[in-house]
């Protein structure tokens, strides 16, 4: 038998982990996202200032769209950068 080094786990290691991603807006009942609060919006961009995808933040579609709008408004008002490095 050839050795199978590529098989590390016999079963999915994520089974039994309870840290499932969730939409923080739905969970905590946040209905409005303020574009004048760049510290909060910083959670939804990477260190280049680009928007993070839903598969990483866990936002629902409805609120991801609102986050995107809020970030774009904050960029227009120079509260957040359009392009940078080492934002975080």
């Amino acid at each position: 038998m050839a050795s199978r080094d590529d098989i590390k786990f016999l079963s999915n290691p994520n089974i039994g982990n309870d840290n499932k991603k969730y939409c923080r807006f739905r969970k905590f009942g946040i209905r409005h996202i303020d574009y004048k609060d760049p510290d909060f919006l910083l959670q939804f961009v990477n260190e280049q200032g680009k928007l993070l995808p839903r598969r990483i933040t866990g936002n629902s579609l409805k609120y991801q769209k609102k986050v995107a709008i809020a970030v774009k408004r904050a960029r227009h008002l120079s509260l957040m950068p359009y392009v940078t490095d080492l934002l975080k």
Partner: protein
Amino acid sequence: MKQYEITFIIDPVLPGDEIKTAGKAYEKLIANEGCTIVHVDEMGLQQLAYPINKRNSGVYKCIEFQTETGSVISKLELALRRDERIMRFLTVKLDKYGVKYNDDKRNGKIGSKSKSKSSSKEDKKEEKGYVKKDDLTLIEGVGPKIANLLSVAGLKSYDSVAGASIEDIRSILSKGGSNYIGHDPSTWSQQAKLAAGGKWAELNKLKDKLIRGISSEEE
């Protein structure tokens, strides 16, 4: 009744009273059109995330108002566009959640948790000797790189630059590398003193006399 919110950035390199009158003028314009002003938020001087018109900071102001028709918006935006003192503006229509959010924020409901946190944070920062960061590039002779160098060395505000001696600043510059040795910081503390006191008009006069931060009388 529709509720709108308009945020704009006023040029910081204006005399202090002119910044105020510029903001007040738009409050009046809104009130004259028969709208009710709900709230005016003076957000004050803030660092910009990227330079606009070669300025690195701006005075933010946010006016929240109610109107029946919305015909003010076009007039207001036209006036803002024609005004050279205004660097940027943004008008947003608030939905019912936005109105509620702003109400709660004013009454301290939203900020309550974060407020206690932020206040404790501020206390900690003060304990550590944290100083609010000023836009040092407004000083003639200081560019973004030197401002960075100074803030790393602990000179973050105008007050601290005003307090530092010429030798101190020279040693900071020489540590930064050979590129900075050519800069003459002899007038920086004087300029910083004016900036710390908010005397922008006097600072501008002084800047006109200076060439690259060196007083022309000496030359």
